C-alpha cells in the first residue's frame, strides 16, 4: 500500500481583478467537490474570498465613520448654561484592565482559527488522494482548533460584557459622557460583528456534522478565519483608539 506525506502543496487561488487585456479565468472543470451545478474548488474559494474582501469594505467604512465622529466630538466645546462659557465635556474613561485579557483571548483565538484553516485546507488538498480506496495517508492527531476558537470567541464576548458591567459600576453609562458613549458604541459594534464570526463558526461546525464535502468545509473555514483575523485587528485598533486617543 502506498503511503504519502500529509504535507501537500496547493496553489493558492488568487483573487481575480482582471483588467483590460487579461482574460478572466475559465470556469468549469473538475475537483473533488464539483458536483452538478458547482464550479471547481479553486474558483469557489477565489470567488468567496473576493466576496469577503468586498464585504469587509463597508465594515471598514462603518468604523472609519465612527472614528471620524470620535475625533470630531472629542474636540467640540459645549456651552455651560451656569457660567455661559464654552467648556469641554469630554471626560476620558478609564478602561477596565479586563479588556487587555480579552485582547489576549481574541489574539489567541485568531491563532487557533488560523491553525484550523491550515488543517482543513490540507485535508481538502489530500481529499482526491485519500478518496482512493487503496491509498492511506496514515493517522494524524486531529486537534479541534475550530471548537477551541469558538470557546475563546465566546469567552471574549463574555469578557466584553463583564467589562461593560465594570464600566457601569464605575459610573460610566452610555450617556454619561461623550467618551463613554463612544466606548459602548465601538465595543458594542465590534461585538456584534464578532457574533457574526461566531455564527460562521457554528455554520462551519454544522457543515462538518452534515458531512459536507471537505472543499465546502474548507471554504467556510477559510472565510471565517480571514473574517476572524480582521475582527482581531479591528479590535486592536479600537482599543488603541480608546486608550491612546482619549
Amino acid at each position, binding site marked *: 500500500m502506498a503511503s504519502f506525506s500529509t504535507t501537500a502543496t496547493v496553489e493558492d487561488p488568487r483573487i481575480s481583478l482582471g483588467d483590460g487585456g487579461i*482574460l478572466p479565468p475559465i470556469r468549469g472543470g473538475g475537483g473533488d467537490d464539483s458536483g452538478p*451545478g458547482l464550479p471547481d474548488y479553486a474558483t469557489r474559494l477565489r470567488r468567496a474570498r473576493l466576496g469577503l474582501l*468586498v464585504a469587509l469594505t463597508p465594515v471598514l467604512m*462603518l468604523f472609519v465613520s465612527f472614528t471620524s465622529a470620535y475625533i470630531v*466630538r472629542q474636540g467640540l466645546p459645549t456651552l455651560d448654561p451656569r457660567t455661559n462659557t464654552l467648556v469641554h465635556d469630554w471626560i476620558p474613561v478609564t478602561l477596565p484592565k479586563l479588556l487587555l485579557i480579552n485582547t489576549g483571548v481574541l489574539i489567541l483565538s485568531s491563532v487557533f482559527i488560523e491553525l484550523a484553516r491550515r488543517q482543513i485546507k490540507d485535508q481538502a488538498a489530500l481529499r482526491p488522494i485519500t478518496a482512493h480506496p487503496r491509498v492511506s495517508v496514515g493517522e494524524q492527531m486531529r486537534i479541534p482548533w475550530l471548537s477551541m476558537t469558538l470557546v475563546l470567541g465566546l469567552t471574549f464576548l463574555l469578557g466584553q460584557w463583564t467589562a461593560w458591567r465594570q464600566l457601569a459600576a464605575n459610573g460610566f453609562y452610555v450617556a454619561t459622557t461623550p467618551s463613554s458613549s463612544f466606548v459602548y458604541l465601538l465595543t458594542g459594534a465590534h461585538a456584534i460583528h464578532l457574533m457574526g464570526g461566531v455564527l460562521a463558526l457554528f455554520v462551519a461546525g454544522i457543515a462538518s456534522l452534515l458531512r459536507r464535502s471537505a472543499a465546502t468545509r474548507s471554504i467556510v473555514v477559510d472565510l471565517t478565519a480571514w473574517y476572524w483575523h480582521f475582527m482581531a485587528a479591528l479590535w486592536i485598533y479600537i482599543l488603541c483608539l480608546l486608550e491612546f486617543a482619549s
Partner: protein
Amino acid sequence: MATHEFAAQESHAHAAPQGFVRKWVFSLDHKVIGLQYYFLALAAVLVGMFLSLLMRIHLIWPTLALPLLGDIKPETYLTLVTMHGTIMVFFVLTTAPQGGFGNYFLPIQIGAPDMAFPVLNMLSFWTTLLGFIVMIAAFFVAGGAPLHGWTGYAPLSAMQSTGPGEGLGADLWIISIAIFCIGALMGALNFITTTLDMRAKGMTMMRLPLTVWAWFVTAILGLLAFGVLLSAGILLLMDRNLGTSFFVPLVTINGQLTGHKGGSPLLWQHLFWFFGHPEVYIAILPAMGMCSQLLSVFSRKPIFGYKAMVYAILGIGFLGFMVWGHHMFMSGMSPYTAFAFSIMTMGIGVPSAIKTFNWLGTLMRGRIRFTSPMLFAIGFVSLFVSGGISGPFLAQPVLDIQLHDTYFVPAHFHLIMGVASIFGIFAATYYWFPKMFGRMMSESMARWHFWFSFIGTYAIFMPMHYLGMAGMPRRYSQLTEVTYLHGLIPLQKFITYAAFVTIAGQLIFLVNLFWSMFKGKQASDNPWEATTLEWTTATPPPHDNFGGHTPVVHNGPYEYNVPGAPRDYVMQSDPEIGPAH
C-alpha cells in the same frame, strides 16, 4: 444569421426551481429578483408621486380639505416633503436602475449564469422590501411619519419631542434606512464580485458594455457610502433613544433644557452628505450607462470614445466622494474649505461634459432610429444638460447662499438626479421589455408617454428656477399670504397644473406596461438589432441565461456599421472582426 461561439457547458449554482413560491417569490434567479426590485420600485414611485401631488395641491390651495385626508397642516406638509424625498431617493432611484435592471442584465451582459451569490441576492431584495414596509409603517403609527426632511437634519431629527412624527415615526424612518443600507450593501457585494470574477471568456473589462461599467462603479459607490450612512443612523438612534449627544448641542424645547449637550448638528451633516452626494451618482450613473448603450444602438454607431466614457464614469465616481461639502455652504464653513469644495464640484463637470459630448458625438451623423427607448435616451441627455447647467451656479458658495433655500435647488436636483434618472428607467424599460417579457410594448402609447413626460417635466421644473431666483423659499407649506410673493402665485399654479398633466401621462405608461405583458406583439430574440450578449439568448432568457452554454466574446459591445461586415452590427459573440475600428 451569425454563428455564436460557446464555451463548454457552464455550471449553474442552483437548479431551475419548480413551483410558484420557489420560482417567483423566494427565487434565487437574478432575473426574477430583478423583476421583484423593479415592481417594488414601481409601487414606491406611485406612493412618492401621490405625495408630490398632495404637496402641489396644497401649495396653491392651502385651505382645501382633501377627501379622506382633510386639511393639510404645515407639519403634515413637511411629512409629505420628507416621505416623498426618502421614498423616491432610496426606493425608486436607487432601487430600479441598480437593483432592477442591474440584477436582471448584468450577469447576462457579462455572460454569466447568475450572480456570484444567489442566496445573498435574494436576501438583498427581501431586506429592501422589509425596509420599504417599515418606511410605509411610519405613516400609520402614533404621530405619523417624520417631518425632518429626507436629509434628517439634527437636532430636529435627533430628539423625540421636536414635533409630531418625530417619535416612533422617526425611529421607523431611521430603521428603514438602516435596513435599506444593509440590503444595498448585499447587492453591491454581488455586483462587484460578479463583474470581477464571472465574466465569460473573452469579456475583458474593456469589452464590457457601458451599462455594466455603470452598475459596477455604482456598486462601489454604494459599498463606500452606505456604511457611512448606516453609522450616522446608529448614532442618531442612540441620540434619540439612549440620551447620548453626538448630534445634539445644548438646546431647549419650549423653554426646557433637553438634557443633551455638546453634540454637533454639523457632524450629522458631514456624515449624511458623505453618503448623500455619492447617492446622487448612485441614482444617475446607471441611467448614464443605459443612455450610452441606447444612443449607440439606435444611432447605429459605435459609442463615441468608449475608453473616455469608462474613465469618465470612474472619474465621476471618484470625485463624487470629494464634494459633499457643497451641500453645506450655508453652515458657516471656512471660506477656504468652501473654496476647495467649490473647485472640486466644478471639477466634476469635466467628466460629465466628456460624457455629454460623447453622447452628442455618437448621435452625430448616425442613422438614428427614433424608437421610444431612443426618445427617452435623448430626453435623458436633454434633462442632464438642463439640470447640470445650474450645477456650477450652486457650486459657488456666494451664489449658493442666495439660492440654497429657494426653489432653485429642487429645480436643479429634480432635473438632473430625479427625472433624468427616471428617464433612464423608462428608456431601459422600453428597451429591455421585449427581452424580459417576450413581447413588445406599444410604440404609439410609448410616444404619447414620452411627450407628456418630456414637455411636462420642463413645464414643472424650469419655472421653479425662476421662483428660486425671485426668492421664493422652499419647504414652506403656505406662502400664498406672503405679500412679496403674490406675483409668483400664477407660476406656482402653472407648475401644479403641469404636474397634473404629467402625472396623467404616466397612466399611459402603466397601461402600456401591463397591457403589453399579456397582449403585446411577440418579440424576436433581437428586435433592436443590438450587439450585447443578452440579445444572443432566447426571449425571455432561460433559467441559466444561455441554455447550458457560456458565450465566448470576441468583439467590443458597440460594433455597429462595421466596414465589410454582412450587416450593420456585429454581436459580441460573433467571430472576431479584428481591432476595434
